[in-house]
Every structure is written in structure tokens, then in C-alpha cells.
């Protein structure tokens, strides 16, 4: 019993260390990319035209914000560096386990991205209909009954919503190549 508890605790500790290290890497990569982007934008903002009517030009305010942002990015990176020293390398399979745990979130994100890309081509109705059915299937609507409900919801949301906006609010949602 105590061995089992000890093993469970050491697994928890390992997961905690992996999470801390992964987060530190996440911050360093995210903030380093942003720091470079903001430094580039800072330079670009300096090329914006100034005005003879006001002491501040179009680029002054964004430059102040960008300068602070670069400083904060560097501060966050410096703050995260000790976490890398304090933790050992990620355990084998940690990245794979994280990806498996987040598979539904990434799946939904990809489906949402596909729908977004398809809206101007297929129109709202035909882009949202498959999104709604496939997304519900992905998230657990697997039985025949659940799939029938999912299809009804998808039809109501895609065709129904489009019709509601067109006829009641007189707002035309994108109709795609079917004009």
C-alpha cells in the first residue's frame, strides 16, 4: 500500500516538474518571438509620419507601448530562466501525453479553422453544417440518437440561423459561390 502511494506521489511529482519545465519553455519561446516582433514594430513605428499640428506623431504612442512591451518580454524570460535550471529534462513521452490530453481542443480548433476558411467559399450554411455535425461527433455524439439530435441542431444552427438573420434582422450572412 505504502509503495503504491509512494509511486503515485512520485508520478505526481514528475508530472509537476514536467509541467513547470514545459511552461517555462513555453514562456521563453512565446515571449522571445513577441520580443523580436515588437522590436521590429518599434522600428517600423518610427517611420510613421509626424504631424506639424501636434507634438506627438502617429507612431509616438505605439512606440511607448512597444518599448514597455519589449522590456516586459525580457523580464518574463529572465524570470522563467531559473525554472529551467531547477528542473531536469522532460520525461520521455511527456510531450506525447500532453498532445493526447489536448487532442479534442486541437481537433475543435482545426475544425473551427476549416469552417472559417470555408465560409467565404461555401457560404455560412454549407460551412457551418458539416462543422456542427463533425464537431459534435468528435466531442462524443456517437450513438444513432445522439447523431440524429446533432444533425437537427446543425440544420437549425446553419440554415435556421442564416434564415433568421436574413429575414428578421435583414443581415445577409456570407452565401459563398452560390451567391
Amino acid at each position, binding site marked *: 500500500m505504502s509503495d503504491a502511494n509512494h509511486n503515485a506521489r512520485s508520478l505526481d511529482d514528475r508530472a509537476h516538474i514536467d509541467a513547470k519545465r514545459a511552461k517555462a519553455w513555453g514562456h521563453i519561446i512565446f515571449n522571445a518571438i513577441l520580443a523580436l516582433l515588437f522590436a521590429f514594430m518599434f522600428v517600423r513605428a518610427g517611420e510613421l509620419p509626424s504631424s506639424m499640428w501636434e507634438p506627438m506623431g502617429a507612431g509616438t504612442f505605439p512606440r511607448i507601448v512597444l518599448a514597455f512591451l519589449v522590456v516586459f518580454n525580457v523580464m518574463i524570460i529572465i524570470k522563467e530562466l531559473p525554472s529551467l535550471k531547477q528542473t531536469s529534462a522532460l520525461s520521455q513521452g511527456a510531450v506525447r501525453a500532453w498532445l493526447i490530453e489536448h487532442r479534442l*481542443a486541437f481537433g475543435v*480548433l482545426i475544425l473551427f479553422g476549416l469552417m472559417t476558411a470555408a465560409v467565404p467559399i461555401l457560404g455560412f450554411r454549407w460551412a457551418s453544417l458539416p462543422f456542427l455535425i463533425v464537431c459534435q461527433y468528435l*466531442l462524443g455524439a456517437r450513438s444513432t440518437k445522439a447523431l440524429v439530435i446533432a444533425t437537427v441542431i446543425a440544420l437549425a444552427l446553419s440554415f435556421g440561423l442564416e434564415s433568421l438573420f436574413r429575414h428578421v434582422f435583414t443581415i445577409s450572412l456570407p452565401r459563398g459561390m452560390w451567391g
Partner: protein
Amino acid sequence: MLEAILLGADQLFTFTTMLTMLVGVTVGVIAAAIPGFTITMAIVLTLPLTFTMPPLQGVSTMLAVYIGGYTGGMISAALLGIPGTPSAVATTFDAFPMARNGEPGRALALGIWASFFGTLISTLVLIAAAPPLALIAVKLGAWEYFSLVVFALTIVASLVGRSMVRGLFAGLLGLLIATVGADPLMGVTRFTFDLRLLSAGIPFLVVLIGIYAVSQLLKEVENPDQVQKGRQLITGRIEFRPFSALREVLKNPINLLRSSMVGVFIGAVPGAGGSIANLLAYDQAKRGSRHPEDFGKGCSEGVIASESGNSATSGGGLIPMIALGIPGSAVDAVLMAALMVHGIGVGPRLIMDNADTVYGMFMAMFVAGAMMLVVCLLSMRLFLKVTNIPKSVIVPVVLTCCLVGAFTLNNRVTDIYLLLGIGLVGYIMTKLDYPLAPLVLGVILGPIAETNLRRALMTNEDWTLFFTRPISAVLLGLAVISIALAIRYHLRQNRPRPEDA
């Protein structure tokens, strides 16, 4: 005066006016509960329907939509963690955790009562203090506006969560996002990189929907085992006890009154509105509370402050409109348009020339507030059924509504691409423990800050005016006090406790 009140009452209390107001309140509640569908959109869509109505009936119906909308935004904020309207951002901080802790009924009931009292208090202030408050609001020049924004920005310090650096970074990122597109004074395009996608800037509402809705929904589906077994958003028995919530709200009279007064004042300042009032009222409640550490974990004080604060802007916004003909917000501008369509001139003479309409509007505010209370108390059990719907249905349905909301704002397909991009950034930030509220606040306040800073320096290059003009100096002083208090609070939080040693 009595004659005008009676005449206004005679016009207001007719069957058709009461009916259209009831429909208006219901439509406002439902519309604002949908993420991306703002109160302004609901009011704009209502405007053409009021053209055939008598003036007071038309304006009262729109006021009903307005008041219903301020409460409706709370529903998705509490149940889904997604603010239905920008004025419900702070409501997510405590109402959502409260719902997640198994008390969605309590969260909604507290929000409804707080909204009702917020509307009531703001209407009383509107009647009593419209002229003097309007005069103060109008005296604010670019210096005072900038100082007001600086003061509002200090709220970031109390919204930062565990890390001050990450919170301030998020706030600055919000300010930067607001600078994309045409610059507010010269019209020069900034940071568009010749992309059509960015040429019109990044609309605030797209940021709000992307940051809150998309990232929140992706977070909901992170546990595949629970999601695919048909797990609901909130599990456990759900209770709805409105009268126990009423007692809880009335036990917080200072919080209620302070938050409502914040809402009235912010509403009376042209250009500010429910979104700022909601955050500012929450911040003030947290600072004034004996238990600030409970905020963000499902604290009733937070729900009461945010909801009474945003609802009180409805009365506050009417103060400059009625007294001076200056709209406090986009919604007030539409209300002004409705009056003008009926041939009623809006300006300092409004209350003298059309006293019956003005007193009728005051009474309509009370009636709409009461109707909102009845509609919400009767329909909340229905809304609570949302919590029984499995995530497999909620997530795709709300994502589709978000896409529709982002598109209909400006009828631009590029806005839905921005929604996807901002949703992704929001999700990354959530995974890296960045607080999202400061970012939203930065996007709201960024353009106001830049415009007024540049306008002030354009009028007079002497920057010491920010410190020598009395109202501006008071606001900056308050900002300094606010930062000092936030730093003290953070130091206390981070100080090792004796038992940790």
C-alpha cells in the same frame, strides 16, 4: 411639473406601450445573452420598429431593450464564462467560478437583483442630479479624459492575478492591439503590414469574443474522457432561490451603492460606458472588501459590484443626453436619434419643451427595471437548463454563434479570420497563465488614452497641465493611490506566512 408627470404617465401606462416594453426587455435579455450580440446592435435593430410608434412608446421600448440587455449579458458570463456583452467582462470573474462551484442559480439570482437595484439607484440619481452631474461631465477636457483613463488603467493592477508582470504585459498588449489600423487623429494606417485583414484595425468585440469565448471553449474540451462521456458544464443539483439572493444583496448596501454610483458617474462621462463601469465597480469592491482574497473564486460581492455597476450606467448615460443633448454612449446616441425622428429636439431645452416625454422616460426606466426583474426571475430556470446540455453540443453551437457575431459586427469576412487568430492567441495565453481581463481593458482604453493625450498636447504643449488642472490632478492622485494600494496588497499576499516558515 405635476402636470407633466401626469401627462407622461398617461402616455406611458397604456396596454400597447407596456406590451412593447415587455417584448423589448425579453429581446434585450436574450440578445445580450448571445456572445457577440451587443446591446447597441439590439437597440439599432429595434430603432426602425419604433418609427410607427408614438414618441414615448418608441423610446420606452428602446429603454426596455437597453435595461434587459445589461442583465442578459450576465447569463452567458455566469454560465459559460463568456461575457455576452462587453459590459459583463467583470461578471465572469466571480459569477462563473460561483456557477462552477455548483451554484449557478445563486450567481444568476445575485446578478439579477444587483442589476435591478443598479438600475433603480441610477434612475433616482438621474432624476435628482441630472443637471449638476451633466455640468461636471461636460467640463472634462482632453487632460481630464486622459487622467480618467490612467486611473481606469490602474485597475489592471488588481486584475493581474498571481503575477504582476504578466498582468501588466497583458494590459500593454491590449493597448498595442488597439493601435492596429487607422490612427485616431491623422488616419495614418499603422501595423497593417499591407494586409487587407488588418487594414480596418482589430475590432474590440472581435478581441472580446476571441479572447474569452474561443479560448474558454477550447479549455472546456481539454479533458477528453469527461467530454466524450457527455459531461455537462456544471454538475450536481442546481437550485434557484431568488429571495435568499435578495437578502444577500441587501446585506451589501455599501457595495451596492458604491458600485451603482461608479456606474452612474462612468455612464455620465461621454465615451465611457458599461464595459468600464463593470470593471471599475468590481475593482472598487475588491479594494473596499474585508476579504479581497475571496474575489475571483466565486465571491458574491464581486457579482453584486459588477452587475450593479454596469446596469447603473443606463441611467447615468441619460444624464448628459437629457440635460445637454450629448450622448453618453452609442446606445444613447441611438436613443437620441429615436427622439429626433419623432421631431423632438434634444438639447438643454428638452426638459423644458418636452417635460412630459422626459418624465415619461424616467418612469419608463423604473417600469423597465421592474419588468426586467420579473422576466428574469421567471425565465432563469429556463436559462439554467443550459447547464444540463452536454459540452459536445454547447461548444460547437457557441463557436458558431461567435462566428456569426464576429461577422455581423461589420459584415466583414476578414473579422472571422481575426477571431480565429485572436482565439488562438487567447488560448496560448490561458495555457501560460496570463490574465485576460487586463488585455480587454487595454483594448477598451487604448484609443481613448491615445486620442486624449494627443489632443491635450495639440491644444497646449505644456504637459504640466495634467497636474495643474484640478479634476485631472485629482484623477491622477487617485491613480497613484490606487497603484500604491495594489502594490501593498501584492506584497502582503506574497509575504511568507509564519506557518510556512
